[in-house]
């Protein structure tokens, strides 16, 4: 019997396999940031160990990084200590670090692909659950805890029980006005937050093949939001085209050898998936969340659901709690929900194509009076690229705030947070209670919906926007 792509990559990374024990997997790339690494480096120091492969390890600063006053030291002393600790650790253990102020600094999951370090057929780990992003290249990529960070630093390997295999068959084509973000939000709503648990999922089918690399990253990024161990997409010409020529991409004969290997990774026709789920992309419309987990979502055209109609008792209670927290009433049309803050950014939707799309939509329009839009590029290079294209000017002219790169309001470890009761439409990945600030209320949306929402002041899609006034640009 044939193998799935994930099985092939897995098998190619087994260092040691022994009955009754998890496989020991070799790790090709270990990404590090300031929040989940200090205790791991401490562990190394305590046991007198070193970093086995600094050349397969890369650190950057992202979670705590302020997005304003970038020329000043970090004002929050605890955040600053954490960042400085990473700098000391990187220096002491010989790990390459892209710190604040460096051209290659940014959200760790934006930086890896941008540098060409993320390639097909790899194992990629990071002490961050959105490491699943890198699966877009046809890699096994997953988030790990700090004990595992220490383990990878010391051994460049990780003990892992082999997950089950799932295929997500995305049939049909996404309709114009519907994005990769809508697709993944709709899928999570269909499968619920625990639906992928225990599986590596392969997203496949016509709609997936049609996605750009950045859109594939948006999809794979949220694999963890339905509980999957990892999510991946078969590498193809789109993938090769994206990787080719980047700083760390192979060249010459090495490139040819790599591509030949990458092509061999595609799932065999007779491979077995333990589970197959299907979603029809052609039926999906702009999708938004109403609750406090990413599975609590509906089409923008729908209304806030009534918990009484939910059969599962746990889900029903969770929905009741979520509505209370979100300050919403069942039956309210989603479009009637007013939004205070729009956040465009994060490892889900903070790439150049996201910003281009957002800029295109906001050009000639204005942010609504009672709403603010924060635009936070995923990396310094994304910011510079956007500025070169004049996107920053478009955002600023519309009344949006143009910021420095980092994780920012996705999780509010830096000063970009919501205040209690403040409602956001966010292109990030989690609408958990308090995620963007204590008491903050988050609706997950695509960049398209984010812009339309920011312009109209309530949840909306670009189709709701009045035409740009004819005087624009004069």
């Amino acid at each position, binding site marked *: 019997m044939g193998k799935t792509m994930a099985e092939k990559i897995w098998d190619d990374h087994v260092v040691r396999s022994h009955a009754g024990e998890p496989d020991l997997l070799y790790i090709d790339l270990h990404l590090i940031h300031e929040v989940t690494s200090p*205790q791991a480096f401490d562990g190394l120091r305590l046991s007198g160990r070193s970093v086995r492969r600094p050349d397969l390890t890369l650190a950057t600063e992202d979670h705590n990084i302020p997005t304003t006053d970038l020329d000043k030291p970090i004002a929050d002393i605890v955040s600053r200590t954490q960042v400085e600790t990473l700098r000391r650790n990187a220096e002491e253990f010989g790990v390459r670090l892209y710190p604040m102020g460096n051209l290659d600094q940014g959200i760790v999951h934006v930086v890896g692909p941008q540098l*060409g370090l993320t390639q097909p057929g790899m194992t990629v780990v990071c002490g961050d659950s959105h490491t699943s992003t890198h699966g877009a290249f046809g890699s096994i990529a997953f*988030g790990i*805890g700090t004990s*595992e960070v220490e383990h990878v630093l010391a051994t460049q390997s990780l*003990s892992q029980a082999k997950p089950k295999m799932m295929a997500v068959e995305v049939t049909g084509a996404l309709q114009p006005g519907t994005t990769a973000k809508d697709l993944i939000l709709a899928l999570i709503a269909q499968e619920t937050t625990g639906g992928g648990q225990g599986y590596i999922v392969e997203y496949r089918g016509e709609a997936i093949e049609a996605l750009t690399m950045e859109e594939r990253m948006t999809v794979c990024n949220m694999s963890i939001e339905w*509980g999957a161990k990892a999510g991946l997409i078969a590498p193809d010409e789109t993938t090769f085209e994206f990787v080719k020529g980047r700083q760390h991409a192979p060249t010459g004969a090495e490139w040819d050898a790599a591509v030949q290997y990458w092509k061999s990774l595609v799932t065999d026709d007779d491979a077995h998936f333990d589970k197959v789920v299907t979603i029809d992309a052609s039926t999906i419309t702009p999708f938004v969340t109403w609750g406090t987990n990413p599975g609590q979502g509906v089409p923008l055209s729908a209304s806030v659901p009534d918990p009484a109609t939910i059969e599962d008792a746990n889900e029903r209670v969770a929905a009741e709690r979520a509505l209370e927290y979100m300050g919403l009433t069942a039956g309210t049309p989603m479009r009637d929900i007013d939004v205070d803050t729009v956040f465009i950014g994060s490892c889900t939707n903070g790439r150049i194509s996201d910003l281009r799309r957002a800029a295109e939509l906001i050009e000639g329009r204005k942010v609504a009076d009672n709403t603010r839009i924060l635009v936070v590029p995923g990396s310094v290079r994304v910011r510079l690229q956007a500025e070169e294209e004049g996107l920053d000017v478009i955002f600023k002219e519309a009344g949006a705030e143009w910021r420095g790169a980092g994780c920012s309001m996705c999780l509010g470890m830096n000063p970009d947070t919501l205040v209690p009761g403040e409602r956001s439409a966010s292109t990030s990945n989690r609408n*958990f*209670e*308090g995620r963007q600030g204590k008491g903050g209320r988050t609706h997950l949306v695509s960049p398209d919906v984010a812009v339309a929402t920011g312009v109209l002041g309530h949840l909306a899609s670009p189709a709701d926007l009045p035409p740009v006034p004819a005087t624009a640009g004069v």
Partner: protein
Amino acid sequence: MEKITTHSGVAAPLKRSNVDTDQIIPAVYLKRVTRSGFEDGLFAAWRNDPEFVLNQDAYRDATILIAGPDFGTGSSREHAVWALQNYGFKAVISSRFGDIFRGNSGKSGLLAAEVDEKVVQALWDFVEANPGAPVTVDLESRTVSAGEGVDRIEDSFSIDDYTRWRLLEGLDDVAITLSHEDDITAYEAKRPSFKPATI
């Protein structure tokens, strides 16, 4: 790591599903660079509520948490495990855990015992009817138990063999792997040369 064999203690019912790691400890509490001191951030958003289970006298000193399904989903932050341990928890019982949280628990020495949903319900009923009465989690026999006589609850929990063995022996995962260092070196010798390096 401390060995775990069996633990008996006060169990607190956390009657919520989908308690993600942002609820267990919000991001703003993740800025410490040590493994200790995270108890202040544990369930931070709920700790001001006098009705919250850990604010009730009977459960304040709980060492076992009985949670609804999908406990520990979301962020990979091991700080969630540390916060529970720093507070004093030795074990968490749920019908389903987030994968990364369960892995982190196994590495850090917090016993994550996965039981059938009806066992969670039975334990909730028991600890609410008998606040402060001990619940036992026995890693050797993989059982959770509580109460006596006709009301006694005893059922099995699942945990993978390897994690169970490591917890019982209190073994350091890195040391185990380094005992196979020859295998790692042999693997490295045959890695394709086109694989990228960061330096």
